[in-house]
């Protein structure tokens, strides 16, 4: 009997976690995130960024260019590996290719938005800034270490990177409105939180439904749990409908749009609006509150709908819908399973364990975060609920960032693919640097969280980079001396 009841409570933990991740505020960040990722894949012509990655581009352009490419073009693994191989073999070389490889998974737009929505904007920004800086750093280091091997390129073919494509203005506007939608739904600004209208609907029974829900999925606010709301159930229903209609309307979109396509788009709009409503059940019915958030979402959804139908070309609309749907199909099911498992694990892990290992911003704590990130492989986005679990269990934000950077960065699979392109030695040296820099990122961010002023943090960072640059400079000098010596020796 005891075993039975503990299994029940584990399942409840999983369900509870699942429900709170399907809650309104999560959907308002997750749904736009998928569409932004889809729009980036479908609407940004690759030539706009890749023209900065050719062989003859100066370093101060090719490194930031690679970082930008990692951010803008590499939402999907379909892009990461070919682009990485292309930059390495036919373009700017090992350094920029490594920068690209580092930046792409660490600040994948979906993961970044999701981190911001679930854990906090500060962590998302730290992830963005430190990944960009360290990505360029690791690229430079790798280029220095493997300077000689890097010269053995394939034949120069700059033509591959000579694209001059520019983005259509309509596509730029469309993406900006998508970002506005995300901001309207997630930013905690006064005018967005302000309630402008209240409507009382005399619908009975919703409060009973709500208390029934709290009974089947009990929750403890002290632990950061959220429980299931009646609104949450409505949203889950809508999501299932979106899934079903998209299966009929978007799965076969290459054969042409059909009415299911438009129904599924309308349902997405409806879901976003429902999620941005305030819904308070009480004994006499339900109170709907319309805040600035609702109107922000309403305005941006209407503009997006109009642009989809009449401004974007048919090709753009089709590619956009297909790519977004592909992300949803690829990531969402794994995310749901992941969140459920995290909820179950949550019941089993004792806070004391986490607190003992990574409760403080120590070197060991950060390193453990990185090691865990390297050896555990989680599907895209699942690292975020896991990170939140650790946070609730008492992990310090520093080690948490170290984990969040290293987890998507390194997995056995990605190390192996990288090794087939650049060779085993280079791949493992890269892994070492990533581990070191992720630990460092955690330490630096952690000390900022602990109250160190931003000036001193910057000083640490600069001092470290200076030491690194000096070491590499000396190494470089010594080996080039040796090389000269060698060449003189061989001419003799």
């Amino acid at each position, binding site marked *: 009997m005891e075993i039975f009841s503990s299994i029940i409570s584990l399942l409840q933990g999983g369900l509870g976690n699942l429900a709170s991740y399907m809650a309104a505020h999560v959907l308002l960040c997750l749904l736009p995130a998928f569409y932004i990722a889809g729009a980036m894949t479908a609407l940004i012509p690759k030539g706009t960024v890749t023209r900065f990655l050719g062989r003859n581009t100066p370093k101060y352009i090719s490194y930031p260019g690679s970082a930008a490419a990692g951010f803008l073009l590499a939402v999907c693994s*379909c892009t990461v*590996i*070919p682009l990485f191989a292309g930059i390495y073999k036919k373009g700017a070389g090992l350094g920029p290719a490594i920068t690209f490889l580092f930046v792409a998974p660490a600040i994948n737009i979906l993961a970044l938005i999701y981190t911001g929505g679930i854990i906090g904007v500060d962590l998302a920004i730290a992830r963005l800034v430190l990944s960009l800086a360290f990505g360029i750093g690791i690229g430079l280091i790798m280029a220095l270490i493997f300077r000689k091997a890097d010269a053995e390129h394939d034949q120069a073919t700059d033509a*591959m990177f000579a694209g001059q494509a520019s983005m259509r203005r309509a596509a730029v506007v469309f993406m900006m409105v998508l970002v506005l939608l995300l901001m309207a739904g997630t930013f905690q600004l006064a005018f967005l939180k302000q309630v402008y209208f209240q409507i009382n609907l005399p619908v009975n029974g919703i409060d009973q439904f709500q208390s029934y829900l709290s009974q089947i999925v009990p929750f403890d606010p002290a632990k950061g749990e959220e429980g299931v709301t009646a609104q949450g159930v409505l949203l889950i229903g809508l999501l299932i409908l979106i899934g079903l209609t998209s299966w009929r309307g978007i799965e076969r979109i290459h054969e042409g749009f059909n009415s299911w396509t438009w129904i599924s788009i309308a349902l997405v709009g409806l879901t976003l609006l429902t999620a941005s409503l305030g819904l308070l059940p009480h004994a006499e019915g339900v109170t709907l509150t319309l805040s600035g958030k609702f109107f922000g979402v309403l305005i941006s959804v209407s503009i997006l709908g109009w642009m989809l139908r009449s401004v974007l070309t048919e*090709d753009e609309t089709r*590619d956009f819908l297909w790519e977004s749907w592909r992300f949803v199909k690829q990531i969402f099911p794994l995310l749901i399973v992941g969140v459920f498992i995290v909820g179950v694990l949550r019941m089993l892990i004792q806070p004391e364990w986490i607190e003992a290992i990574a409760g403080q911003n120590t070197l060991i704590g950060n390193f453990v975060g990185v090691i865990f990130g390297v050896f555990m492989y989680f599907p895209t986005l699942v690292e975020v609920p896991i990170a939140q679990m650790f946070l609730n269990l008492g992990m310090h934000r520093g080690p948490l960032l170290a984990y969040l950077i290293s987890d998507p960065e390194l997995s056995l699979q990605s190390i192996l693919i990288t090794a087939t392109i650049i060779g085993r030695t280079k791949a493992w040296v890269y892994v070492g640097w990533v581990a070191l820099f992720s630990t460092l990122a955690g330490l630096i961010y952690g000390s900022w969280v602990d109250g160190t002023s931003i000036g001193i943090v910057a000083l640490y960072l600069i001092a470290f980079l200076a030491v690194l640059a000096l070491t590499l400079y000396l190494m470089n000098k010594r080996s080039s001396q040796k090389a000269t010596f060698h060449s003189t020796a061989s001419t003799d």
Partner: protein
Amino acid sequence: MLTIKILGSGCANCKRLEQIASKVVTDLAVEAEVIKVTDYNDIMSYNILSTPGLVIDEKVVSSGRVPSPAEVTTWIANALVAH
């Protein structure tokens, strides 16, 4: 006889492109061989920056996106004329 190659490691978009290409080939009743290229070194030799890529008679006609059946039909028709 046309040679149509699908470049891609097997991600969702590559499979979709393969379906579309095969369907167009059947619909047009063209004599063509559809080959999947999955090895990265082979893919890179076509100078494309992102998969899926579509190659008709060793000429890259599209890369980085899933083209519509109409586009694929045009490309195949052009290749037939060139023959």
